Each structure stands twice: as structure tokens, then as C-alpha cells.
């Protein structure tokens, strides 16, 4: 296993940097060892950095091939990563479902841009969250982590690799144009050291069954081609041996386990920021880059004497139960996101909504602190 590459300096190290650089460096230090690239705006910087930094980088001819190659690398014991935006991600979905079913670790970075369809490649958006909640046939959860700022780019990218390996699962790192392309001043000296994800291979005395779960519901891993045990991987409904068994009880139990393992291990990758103010009856909820506008809005409201709390969810699939527990404490919930339909709002509260629920939405531009302040004041 590669040793973690230490940050050059631990003292203050100010620089002008983009989130893509932090994401790729973090993924590489955390053990990602193959970058499979197919270019698309706004993920181009990630591609460029991937080819500079990741030990193996290979250009795929299209996004379907990219994910299939990644699945092959993953089956061999590598930790592959790629980066794309919606048009490419749409092509990857069937293969992500395959990797989910085969239980192959990998990280897919989804840099959101303005849709529908080709939309505007260079405009930001937060339009793909709902898709991520329904992309696996049957509605099974794939872990989704979403950085709100540059520190998150560092920490959540690492968590994405660790989660992919620990859960034997694809993980989506959800981000957007502003985070991966806008340059900001940032102090690298603030970044914590990262550790590379440790691959624990099956070493038991019994014949290996690729889908026999351990205590945490995750099966032990062995790469295909190993010299000790036969490995069977399949995208078809299967039991412990990895052979298609249609609707046999063991196969269905294994399928249900796919959801169970993600839920059971959710506390290990639950990340959120909760800034509650005593006496507040309103809470602002914002994810991705809108969280920055929300922080600014909340600070300004408080400076004017308005009591308001803030929730920045960073684990966006599955939804940790703590989110709804927190929100239930507030009479008013203001959810700000850069899309037209309020995707997190729908995921949290459905079509029925709830009393006191307000959406702050925009397309083609970032939600501004002023948008959020207005919504809070109007309640």
C-alpha cells in the first residue's frame, strides 16, 4: 500500500487554488490508484490533475467504457476513480448499477452543471441529487458525499475512498462547477494528514465466497485472478457464490443486503455541519456551494439580531436520520439549492412537504445570501 504523501508544509501555506486540485490530491493520498478519464466540462481540471497525480491514468473512449474499465480494474484490486458531469454520468449509470451489484469499490466524481440535457456546460447547478437517489433499479442507496467548501474537498474525497473500500461499493462525490473551477485563497497548512485506505483481503481457511457478508454486512474482498480461491462476480441476482439464482431466497437476501450494508454503515460516513442558535425557530438548509451563501446569510441575519440555525448536509445518500430529527425541531425550514424544483426538499419531505417549509431556488446563477435572507425574513 502506498504511503501517504505528506503536505509539504504544516505552517501557514496560503495559495490560490481550485477545488479540483484538492479533490484529486486527496483521492490519490487516500489510495485511489487508477484515474480513468473521459473529458467533460466542468470536470476538465479534475481530468488534468488526475493525469498528473494518480499513479495510473488512462483515457477512455467514452463514459460507458470508462466505467467498465474501472469495474475491471476494481475487480483486480485497484481503486479506480473518474470525473464527469451529467451527460457523461447518464451514460455511466447502468455500469454503476453493475458495480453496485458486483460490489466493486470505486469513486465517481459528478461535477454538476446546468441542464436539462446538454444545457450550459460552463454554468453551475445542483440538479443531479434526485437522480442519485433513484439511479439504482429498486432504489438502492449508493453513498453520496458532497463537499461544501475546500476543506470538505480534502476530507470528503478521502472519506469517499475509504467508504468505497470499506463498503465494497461505488461512491459518488457530488460537486459542482463553482467548487471545481473557481479559485480561492486557501491555507494548505490547515489540511489534516490523510491515510490511505487499507485493503483487507480474505485470508480464511474455507473456500472463498465472494458474497458471504462479514459482521458489517460487507463481504471480504479477493481480486479476480488470485491464485488461492475462485472469485465469481456477477451483475445478475445471485447468492453467496456469485452465480445467478433468479429469485431464490438466498439471492434475494443478498440483494436486500446491498441496501442493508449501506444503511448499517451509514454512521461511518455521515458528515454534516449543524450550527444551531438557541431560541431559533428557523433553520436554513443548504448543500454544495450554496452552503457558502447560506453561511454568509446566517451570519448577516444574526448580526442583525435574527435568530436562525444552519444545517449543511454533506452525506446526501442515504439521508442520515439525524437530518430529519434536527429539522423536526424547527417551525420553519428554508432549503436553498441551485435548481428549479427543490431536489433536497423533495427527498426530505416529499411532494406533501410540511408546514413552514420554504424553498429558495435559482437556475443559471448561484443562490445568493440575499435570496436566503429574503426568504427567512418573509416567513
Amino acid at each position, binding site marked *: 500500500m502506498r504511503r501517504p504523501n505528506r503536505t509539504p508544509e504544516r505552517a501557514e501555506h496560503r495559495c490560490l487554488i481550485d477545488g479540483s486540485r484538492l479533490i484529486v490530491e486527496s483521492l490519490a493520498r487516500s489510495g485511489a490508484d487508477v484515474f480513468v478519464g473521459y473529458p467533460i466540462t466542468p470536470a476538465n481540471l479534475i481530468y488534468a490533475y488526475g493525469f498528473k497525480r494518480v499513479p495510473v491514468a488512462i483515457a477512455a473512449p467514452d463514459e*460507458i467504457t470508462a466505467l467498465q474499465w474501472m469495474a*475491471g480494474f476494481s475487480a483486480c*484490486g485497484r481503486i479506480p476513480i473518474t470525473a464527469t458531469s451529467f451527460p457523461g454520468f447518464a451514460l455511466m449509470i447502468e455500469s454503476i448499477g453493475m458495480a453496485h451489484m458486483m460490489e466493486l469499490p470505486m469513486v465517481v466524481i459528478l461535477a454538476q452543471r446546468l441542464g436539462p440535457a446538454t444545457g450550459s456546460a460552463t454554468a453551475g447547478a445542483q440538479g443531479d441529487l434526485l437522480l442519485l437517489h433513484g439511479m439504482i433499479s429498486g432504489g438502492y442507496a449508493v453513498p453520496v458525499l458532497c463537499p461544501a467548501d475546500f476543506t470538505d474537498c480534502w476530507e470528503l474525497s478521502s472519506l469517499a475512498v475509504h467508504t468505497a473500500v470499506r463498503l465494497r461499493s461505488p461512491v459518488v462525490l457530488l460537486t459542482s462547477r463553482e467548487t471545481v473551477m473557481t479559485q480561492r485563497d486557501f491555507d494548505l497548512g490547515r489540511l489534516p494528514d490523510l491515510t490511505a485506505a487499507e485493503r483487507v483481503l480474505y485470508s480464511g481457511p474455507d473456500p472463498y465466497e465472494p458474497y458471504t457478508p462479514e459482521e458489517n454486512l460487507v463481504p471480504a474482498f479477493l481480486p479476480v*485472478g488470485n491464485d*488461492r480461491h475462485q472469485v465469481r462476480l456477477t451483475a445478475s441476482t445471485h447468492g453467496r457464490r456469485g452465480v445467478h439464482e433468479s429469485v431464490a431466497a438466498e439471492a434475494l437476501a443478498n440483494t436486500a443486503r446491498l441496501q442493508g450494508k449501506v444503511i448499517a454503515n451509514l454512521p461511518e460516513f455521515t458528515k454534516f455541519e449543524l450550527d444551531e442558535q438557541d431560541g431559533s425557530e428557523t433553520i436554513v438548509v443548504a448543500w454544495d456551494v450554496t452552503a457558502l451563501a447560506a453561511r454568509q446569510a446566517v451570519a448577516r441575519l444574526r448580526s442583525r439580531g435574527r435568530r436562525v440555525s444552519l444545517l449543511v448536509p454533506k452525506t446526501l445518500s442515504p439521508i442520515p436520520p439525524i437530518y430529519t430529527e434536527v429539522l423536526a425541531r424547527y417551525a420553519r425550514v428554508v432549503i436553498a439549492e441551485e435548481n428549479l424544483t427543490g431536489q433536497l426538499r423533495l427527498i426530505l419531505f416529499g411532494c406533501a412537504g410540511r408546514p413552514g417549509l420554504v424553498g429558495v431556488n435559482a437556475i443559471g446563477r448561484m443562490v445568493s445570501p440575499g435570496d436566503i435572507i429574503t426568504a427567512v425574513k418573509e416567513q
Partner: protein
Amino acid sequence: MSGRFLTDSPLPFCGGCGHGLVVRNTAKALERLGVSPLDVVLVTDIGCHGIIDGHFLTHTVHGLHGRAVALAAGIAAGLPETKTVLVYVGDGGAVIGLQHLVEAAHHNFDMTVIVHSNMLYGMTGGQPSGATPCGYRTPSCPAGKAEPGYDLCQRVHSAGAASARRVIGKGDFSDVIVEAMTTPGFAMVEVMEHCSSYGVKHNPERSLEAIVRDAELSMEPLRNPVTKPFRIESRGEALSLLAIDPIDRRFRAGLDRRISILLGGSAGEGVQVAAETFARAAIAAGLSATKKGIYPVTVGVGYSVAEIILSPEPILYAAAITPDLVALTSLDGFKYYQRVITEMRSGHILMDEELPGPVTNATVTRADIRRPAGKRGAALYALALLARQHRLFPTAALVEESARGRLAGKLDISHLLSQPDKEDA
């Protein structure tokens, strides 16, 4: 007894189906190669042939329809050359994944693809595939397929396959499979079959050999010069992406509030680098800074503009709703921001004197920018003038930062600033 490579279970194919023969010839070929079952990875596609994985005692991977070749490519590239990667795919899957075949041949991934070419989709009721020959009848095209099928061997051969060969799926063709598996790099064997459930019934008067002959599908082996098979190779420890020079805080900023600055210029005139340099200079003066670039996808033509925010406090929301300062160095930049500057009620616009006069309530200064600085220096010079006039930070910071990084040795505006402002932190 099924040998070392197959279980004892009966094969799951219809009576008379050629798939069973492909399986037995594969197992025989593997026996002849003398490899261990754990040295072999069999990747199967979707289709009747794909239900065989549970019968093989090798490693097995069963993926998506049409994608087995791409999945196997990742495996082949990730394993050492001592391992054998076999792919089973049908003619339907081969056509769905034709690009995967072409790409695998082109890259020379080290694998052997065996196409079970039974001229239709057997699993879904006998629809023709892209490889079904002209005139071949299936349940869904009883009059016969109207157009010729793809010659899969020719396709992969022209893409660079080390070896491609078609065989009639009868008798013992294990030597052809052995030859393919011992070929370094990408090899394909297309086994011609006649689906016993749908093909024979709808084409009762035609033999398999006659169908293949009438379709002018050649049995001649196709070879390209042997080249090194593709395998991923680690480049070793790469330089950290964070190994970038720190920006020391060594100047004192004059700015005491957040401001946003728009820089409008043309592609190829150093607008983005100038904006980055300006932001770095601001950081050197202790300010917080953000910079985003905006330009068309055709990066070499048209506008190139940048949005910069500076603040003595950390910047969270990084967008300029109403700009405070605007620098315009070319007509492209002027046109891009024309609506924005028309709507400005206050603030300052600095523009090259050759540009048209704007309609705006902002203060406008027209200056000689492009002529003394040149088109590649105009953006940085304009920003320097704004920094000086509005006392954002000392222009010495800009001169120093432009002497580092991407502008080092390429652009020096210090002579234009006769005496750069310098106020140490």
C-alpha cells in the same frame, strides 16, 4: 467427467445449440495450454452463452449486455501476463459493444474474445442482430434480413487486432482457440452457429456452411504485426499537487471592504493569467481573494473575462452581483459586459481609450492601456491601474507576483508603473 475447467453439471443449452460445443472446445483448449483454472478469468456477456459462468471452475465475471469486452479490458490491463482473460459474447452483444471491440483491438488488450455468432438474439425470441447476414430469417423478420451483417473479424482486424479468425462451430476447433489464447494481445474467434430454436426452424433448407458462404464471410485468419499488449503501468510516486509556492503575506492592503472586479478582454490576451496574478497579489497583501474565468468553449477566440472578489474578511459567496470595478481592455470584453455596465448605478469603469463610449451611471475612465502594455499586457496593466487608483494593495505586490509562476520572464509591467507603490506589511 468435465476436466479441470468445468463442473460436472449438464450444460444449460438447448439441444443442438452450438454454444455447448464452444464451451467444450474452450475447456479443451485450456487443458492443452496447461494453465490452472485460477490463472483464467472468464468474462461473459448477456445472452444464452452468458449463463455458462456457473459451470466454469475459473474465475468468472458476468456483466452487462454488450459490455463484457470493456469490462474484460480493465481486468486484462490490471492482471499480470501470466493470467488468461477470456471473453464470451454473442453476435448481438458484439454489435452493441462494437466500439468496445474496436477499442480493445486498437489498444491491444491481452484477451481472447470468443463470439458465439448464432446470427440472432436467442434469449429474447430470435430478433436479428447487426451481424445477422442478409436474407437470414428469424421469427421477427420472416422475410429475411434486408441488409448485410457486420463482418466482425474485418472490423477488429482493421482496428489492429493481433488475430481474428472465423470458424464453423462444428467438431473440434480447440486448436483455433489455443492459437488465439497464445497470441500476445487481442485475439478474436468468431464461432458461426445456427440457433437450434429459432435459426434452424426459420431457415430449414440452408446449412450453416451455406449461410456463411452466401454471406461471403471469410474463414481466412486475419493477422496484424504482433505488438506489446497493453497493461497499466504505475508511474510511481508523483509530485504532490499541493507542492506549490506559498504566497507570503508581505504587503499591506488598503482595502477595507469586500469588492468585486470584472475584467473583460479577449482570448489569447492573458486575461485569465492576469486575473490569477492579481488575486495572488491581493493574497500577498493579506486579502482574501476569489477568481473565476468565463470564456466560450472555443477558448482561442472571442471574449475572455474574469470575475475577481477581494475582501479583508474570508469570502464565502463568490459571485459579483453588482460590480464595484470594471476593467475593459478589448472590444470582446466590452461587448460581453455591455449589459452589466449599462445597469451599473455606481462604481468605476476603466477602459481602453479606443473602445466605444458606454452608457452607464458608473464613473468611466478612458486610458491608454493597450498601446503601452501591448495586447498581452493590457489586462494586467489595467488591473494594476485599478489597484493603484483605488488603493486596493500596493502595485509592487502585482509586479512581484507577475515575476513568479506562469508570467515569469514573459511579462513585466513594472516599467509602466514607473514607481510601483510599495508598502510592506
